[in-house]
Every structure is written in C-alpha cells, then in structure tokens.
C-alpha cells in the first residue's frame, strides 16, 4: 500500500473522470445523465482513496508523509514534489468530502450544460487537492492559480443574474493578489536557490527581506481568506454562484488562504510573521465585529452566510498568528468546521432556493410546519455556526480564543463579542425563516427534504457532530506537525536574534 503514489492518485483521479466525461457521446439527456453518474462515482472513489491517507497517516511523525518526488523542470531545479503532514491532511479530505456532495447537490439544480459543469467540478477537485499536497512552490502556484479557471466559469456560466460582474470581481481580485505572491516566490527562489517548501522552511531569510516577502504572500492569502477590507468579492461571488459553487468557495477555496499562512508565512517568514501580528489582529478583529454587524442587517440569506464566513475566518487568522499551540489547533479545526458548516448552510439555502427561487429571507417564514426535517437539519448547522458545545464550531472557536487569550487578552475579548453577535444573526435568521406562522400562500405546498437531499446532508451532519464530540480524532494527527512548527519557529527566531546581536 505504502508504495502506491496515493497522493497523485487522489489528485488526478478526478481529472481522469473529467476526461472520461469529455468523450461521452449521445443526445443531451444521455450525456447529462452519464456525466452526473461519472462525476459522482469518480468523486466518491476519490473520497474513499483519500480516507486511505487518513488511515495510513502516522500521527506521531511531524514529517511529510506519502512523499512523491520526480524531476519536472530539471533546468530550474523544480520538481513534482507532493506530500502531506498533519496540517494538510484534513484539507485534502475536506476537499474530497465536499466534492461528491456538490455533485449530488447539483443533480437536479443544474439543467443546462451538465457535461461542462461536471468537468469543471472534477478539474476543480484536482486543483484543490493538488494545492494542499504540493510541496514545490511552482507546483503550488500552478494549483493555487489554476483554481481560478473552473471557478470563473462556474460562477459565470451557471450563476445568478449578476454573475458576470461577480465572476470578474472574483477573478481580478484573486489574480491581483496572487501575482504579488509570485514575485515573492521568485525572490525566494533566488535567495535560497530552491522552490522546495521543506528546503525553504529550513532556510533562514534575512529579516529585512522577510518583511517584503511576507507582504507579497499576505496580498494573496488575505484576498483568499478573505480578510477585511479585501473581502468584498466574497459576498458577490457567493450570492451569484450556483449552490455547489458557493459550497466549494466557502468550504475549500477560503481555506487556501488560511492554509497558506500556516504552511508558508509562519515557518518560512517567522520574523515577519511576528512583526506583522498586530496588523493581523487588528484586521481580524475588525472583520469579526464589522462583518457580524453587516450580517445582522442582510436580507439575502446567502449574503448573510457569506458575511458570517468572513467573521469566522477572522478567528482563523487570529488563531494562526497567536503562535500558540492551541491557537493554531483552533485555526485548523475552525477551518475544518467552517468548511463543513458553512458549506452545509449554503446547501440549506440551496434547498429552499430550488423550490422557491428566492434567497430573500422575507420570502420565507414558518417553514417548520411544512418542513420539519429541514428545520432540524438547518438547526444543527445554525448551532454549529454559532459555536454551540457539541458541534464542530465550538472546538475551533474555543481553541483559537484560548490561544488568543494567552497571546493578547484584548484581542480575545473583542473576538468573543463576535461570537455573541454570531449567535444573534444566526438565531435571528433561523427565527425568521423557520419559525412563526406559515402565512404565505406559495409556501403552503413546499415539500420537505427529498431522499437525495437527505443523502447530501447526512454526511455533513455526521461530520459536524463528530468534530464537535470527538475532536481528538482530528487533533491527534495535527499535534506533531503543530509542535514541530512552533519549535521551528522558536529556533528560527533565536537564530535570527543571535545574528542581529553578532552584527552589532
């Protein structure tokens, strides 16, 4: 088993599925039916394969595992270098977990150009998984940026009325951020002579250079996370994207920024990460409080959840830059939890959107009378988003706040107000949509969850509760990598200080 190129299989199996769909022949109905089936089975097979990564993962080791390395562009010393550690493991599984759910959620909702849609999603899966596995910077950048192409098409082709504007906004914002990261990557390559991430983590960059490099990466990751004030593409993109597009956007694409901070900024640029911590704290606290208040005022359900995503990702950035064990644990779990919960919330909106074709809160009310099952499912995710103990959201928020408290009590205090606001806007949303009398005539015949929708939600409910009740299963594989990261950070800072003193 160990000899298989498991990571490459997980990464490129979806592409193989996409190629297969490309060659399906027949009339439109047949093609659509086959495309759906192939996409579903491919993504399920990918998910099962990715579970082998989890079972085969050695939690005691902080090294990169399942490593594959082959020369790719030898003249530039760039290699096809893949591997995962405790930090990336669950992002890979999150990506493979959400893709079949997306395919299933789009089963009936997508009626035109099904073939292209499924191809876009499978290619997207390859790019997402590849990005979390890549250990070579050029390879990483390839996957990181490549995501733009399918996502641009998904928003633009299958999106809502203002899809063109949103697709362009998403594309240009992200591209502008990433090109600055490219400059930083090239500068690192010339300083250290390598594009391999483990090499660069060991290389101590001079302090003055770190600041510039850090800003280059920050430009890219801050847009992806997204952090206030460069978050404005997110509500637009979410509102216009088709349901499954929002799911992937919230579930995985936002995590790329957080992952980048932990994988690249912290270990490679330790001095700059400490230097800029106040900036991160400030922006994150503003994001948490400001976007929570904005979410409170939203009338569009998708927009509300989009703003809540910005707030939740604020906890991630705070946790990451506390540079404490709990903080980083919290950031990672918070990303996982947000990946499941916000994805599920977008699916919840999708369920009623498919029936009523409206995302406005005012359209609904009293759904509990006609849709009890839906109300229960929605409640689980709503509470997960609020961070009720027992759900995944609690673990993430609690741990990142513990970390924040150890690092800076004021930040912890201000961030905690965000939790209260979060409870306010989520409960308010839930009350307006689910409770109250069922007075609207057009809602009188609305149907509860179909078996397909139950199949979509069941794994998400299970994941939310599993992370909430037994977080150990997720924390254990992370721990070794996080300790190694922090030890490495301490050593790097000590080395840097000794250089500075020697220089005096």
């Amino acid at each position: 088993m160990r000899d298989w190129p498991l990571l490459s299989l997980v990464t490129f199996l979806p592409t193989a599925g996409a190629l297969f769909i490309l060659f399906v022949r027949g009339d439109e109905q047949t093609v659509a039916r086959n495309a759906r089936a192939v996409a579903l089975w491919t993504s399920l097979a990918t998910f099962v394969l990715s579970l082998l990564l989890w079972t085969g993962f050695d939690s005691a080791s902080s090294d990169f595992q399942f490593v594959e390395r082959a020369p790719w562009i030898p003249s530039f010393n760039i290699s096809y270098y893949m591997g995962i550690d405790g930090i990336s493991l669950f992002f890979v599984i999150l990506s493979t977990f959400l893709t079949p759910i997306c395919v299933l959620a789009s089963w009936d909702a997508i009626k035109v150009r099904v073939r292209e849609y499924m191809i876009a999603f499978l290619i997207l899966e390859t790019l997402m998984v590849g990005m979390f596995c890549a250990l070579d910077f050029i390879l990483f950048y390839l996957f990181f940026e490549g995501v733009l192409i399918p996502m641009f098409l998904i928003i633009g082709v299958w999106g809502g009325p203002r899809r063109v504007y949103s697709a362009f906004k998403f594309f240009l914002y992200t591209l502008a951020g990433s090109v600055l990261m490219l400059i930083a990557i090239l500068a690192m390559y010339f300083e250290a002579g390598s594009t391999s991430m483990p090499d660069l983590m060991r290389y101590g960059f001079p302090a003055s250079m770190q600041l510039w490099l850090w800003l280059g990466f920050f430009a890219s990751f801050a847009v992806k996370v997204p952090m206030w004030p460069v978050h404005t593409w997110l509500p637009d993109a979410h509102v216009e994207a088709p349901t499954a597009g929002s799911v992937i956007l919230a579930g995985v694409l936002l995590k790329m920024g957080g992952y980048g901070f932990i994988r690249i900024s912290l270990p490679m640029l330790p001095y700059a990460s400490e230097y800029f911590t106040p900036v991160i704290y400030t922006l994150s606290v503003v994001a948490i409080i400001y976007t929570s208040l904005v979410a409170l005022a939203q009338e569009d359900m998708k927009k509300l959840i989009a703003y809540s995503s910005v707030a939740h990702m604020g906890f991630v950035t705070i946790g990451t830059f506390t540079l404490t064990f709990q903080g980083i644990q919290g950031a990672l779990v918070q990303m996982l939890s947000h990946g499941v919960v916000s994805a599920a919330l977008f699916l919840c909106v999708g369920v009623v959107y498919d029936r009523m074709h409206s995302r406005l809160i005012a359209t609904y009310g009293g759904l509990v009378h006609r849709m009890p099952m839906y109300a229960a499912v929605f409640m689980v995710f709503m509470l997960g988003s609020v961070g009720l103990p027992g759900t995944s959201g609690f673990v993430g928020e609690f741990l990142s706040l513990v970390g924040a408290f150890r690092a800076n009590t004021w930040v912890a205090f201000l961030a905690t107000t965000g939790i209260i606001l979060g409870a306010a806007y989520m409960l308010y949303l839930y009350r307006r949509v689910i409770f109250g009398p069922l007075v609207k005539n057009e809602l009188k015949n609305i149907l509860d969850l179909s078996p397909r929708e139950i199949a979509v939600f069941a794994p998400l409910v299970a994941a939310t509760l599993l992370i909430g009740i037994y977080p150990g299963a997720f924390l254990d594989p992370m721990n070794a990598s996080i300790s190694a990261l922090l030890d490495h950070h301490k050593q790097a800072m000590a080395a840097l200080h000794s250089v500075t003193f020697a220089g005096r």
Partner: protein
Amino acid sequence: MGPIDAALPEFIIALSAMALLMYGAFAGDRATRGISYASILVLAVAAVALSARGGAYAVLFGGQFIVDQFALFMKWLVLIGAALAIWMAPGFNEREGIARFEYPILILFSTLGMLMMISANNLIALYVGLELQSLALYVIAAFHRDSARSSEAGLKYFVLGALSSGMLLYGASLIYGFAGSTGFETLARAFESLEGQAPALGLVVGLVFVMAGLAFKVAAVPFHMWTPDVYEGAPTPVTAFFSLSPKIAALALFVRVMLGPFADLMAQWQQIVIAISIASMLLGALAAIRQTNIKRLMAYSSIGHVGYMLIGLAAGTEAGVRGIAIYLAIYLAMNAGTFGCILYMRRRGKMVETIDDLAGLARTNPTLAAAFAVFMFSMAGIPPLAGFFGKLYVFLAAVDAGLYTLAVIGLLTSVVGSYYYMRIVKLMYFDEPSEPFERDIGAELRPLLIGTGLFTLLFFLWQSPVLDGASAAASALFAG
C-alpha cells in the same frame, strides 16, 4: 570565408522562392494551392538543413553573417511561424477571392529577410535583411487590393516603416561615424575599451535612433501606432503572419544588437528598454479594454506581449534571453492558435470581426469555444497553461537582475490585461448565442488548432525541449 553550408537554409529559400515565382508566373493563379504547399515544403527542407548543421558557431561573408545556437532557435521559430501562416491562408484567400500565387512567395521572401536579420553580424547586413523582410510585408499587407482597408494598411505600414528604416539607417551612420565600424565584433571591442567611461554623445544619439527603428519593428510603445490599423486592415492570415514571424525576427535582432555590439553600453540603453517595456505593457493592457474588433484587440495584445518580452531584455542577462526565447516559442503557439480561431469567424460568406460576434460560441460550437478559451486563459497567463510559463521565466530573469519594480508593474498590468481576455471568454461562455458560424471552413484549420491547443494546454508537462533549446540559444549570446 567560413563554411558556406552554414547559410544553406537561406540559399534553399532564396532559390526555391525564385523558382516558384517563375513557375507561378507561367502557371497563373490556378497553381496557388500547389505553390502554397510547395512553399511549406521549402520551409520544411530549410528547417531540416538548419537542424542538420546544428547551431555550431560560424561567421560567413566577410563577417556579415553569423550562425550560432541563438540563430538556430530563432530561425526555427520563424520558419514554423511562416509555415503556419501559409498553411492557414489558402482557404481564406479562396473564399475572399484573393487566392493569388504571390502570397506564399512573398512570405518566403520575407522569411528569407528574417533569417538574415537573425544572423546579422553587421549593421549593413542588419539593414539589408530588415528591408528585404519589410518590403515583402508592405506588399502582403495590401494583398487584398480591392479592399480600401487593406490598401490603407499597406500604405500606412509602408510610410511609417520607411520612416523607421530611415531612423535606423541614420542611427547606424552616426554609430559608424563615431565608432569607425559597422561590424558587430569591432563595435563590441570598441565599446569594451571604453571601460565604463561614457561614450561620445553622438554615439548615444546613434544608439537611440537604432533602438527607435528596432522598437518600430517589434511594435513597442511609443512606436506602435501602425500596429492596430495594419492588423485590422490586412487580410486575417496576413495579420496572423505579422504577429508571428516578423515579431520573432525583430525581437531576436533587437536582442542580438543590444547584447552583442552594445553590451557594454547597457547603462545607456537599459533605461530606454525599461521605459518602452513598461509603456508597452500598460498600453497593451489598457487600450485593449475598449476594443471591439478582434484583430485590433490582438494588435494591442501583441503590443503587451512585446512589453513582457522586453523585460527579459531589460534584465540583460542570460536568464533574460532564455526567458525571451521561451516566451517567443509559447507566444508563437498561442497566437497562431488564436488566429486559427479567428479565421473560423464567418457568417453568410463573410468574415465577421467584432468580438460580440463570438457571443454564445460555447453553445453553437463548443470545441472551437474551448480552444479559444484555452488560448485566452493562456494569453492572460493563468497557470497551468503555457502563457503562464512564458511570463514566469521572464519575470524570473527580472527578479534575478533585481528589477523588482519592473516585475511588479509587469504582473499588475497582466492582471489588468487579463480582463479583456476574460471578456472574450465571458462572451463565449456566459452570453446567449447569436447566429452560428459557418461550418464548412475547410479541413486545414483543424490540425492547426489541435496542435497549438495541445501545446498550450500541455506545455507544463514536458517543457524540456523548449527549455533546453532556449538555454542553448541564450548561452550562445553570452559565450564571448
């Protein structure tokens, strides 16, 4: 006198072109297709002769003509570009009623001029090659002689081209006056002996004039004004040719002149190259946004691409030249492919050229739309497509040379520029379809699109052939 076989490709093209001209004069326009395919064959034979000898260093004709790895790589690209331009033409020309046998022959002559430009080792050889190339180009720009637009394009190109040739010649004479030679090696030695001292002012003026002439030929800002009009007016296969081979040859010449004889005057020319590079990137990105004609848009796009390539020249290093060489190879593929797609844009027996005509292409012709989208994403520089790697290697050189500001400006303009490429994708994929294009467009475009499309899409998998060739080309320029 060096081994004469080093110039064998040039001899083959010159003699065959004259023979084909004679044949055509007697056989008339009926022979057009035959002559076209024969011309492609001639180019292929020339390529074989080129490779058979390899890029071993040789200097011929009393030091006028140089052959090295750099020339080998660039000549390959020029020959491919010319062959593609001939390949895509017959069908178009027949439908437009301009299927005349002179078209492939004029391309052969201008290709000959380009090969001489690439191998120029003397200001006089440079000028002769440039003029041979340009004269043929002036004629094919006006090839559609009944069309006012095409005639205007030819005339405009001729007048401005003559002006730029004059500037170049004037600059060359100033250089000769102050340095006492036109040979590149003598000039290089003369400037080396300056040992960092500022050269005579007249020499710098001469250098600036030569650069102005060369910038005109590569269509870099501020000498780009002819490009949009000529691109729009000329028949589409001619436009495709303009965007391929002449650009490659002119850039190769630019690189050879700047890094050969004038290498020691880098302090004098580097800032000029940086300025025209930034100006070209900015104009290419901003001016294209408002264009509605696809050929005009491609003109601005090519101006932008030249700006990126000039970054490599501004770096003035081996890595920079390698970046330019890789960029040119990729640019050749994606530009040829894009023009192949543009040739498909026909409705009711007519070429349509506004970008709105592409609306909904993904519904009416999904394969063509997918190919077009691949080229557009590649031009915008989105990985993993080939265009990204073109930019990557150029920016690598810029960062290596410490030109951070240039690199940042370049990447930001590429973000702006991506907007108009994405607008085409948007039209094809997001908008409602209009009337479909004609289907019976001839079979010859299909292999062209498949070939260039696959190259653009899969370049990232196996790039070492291009990379190795480019590395050899770059190191040849820095051998001495």
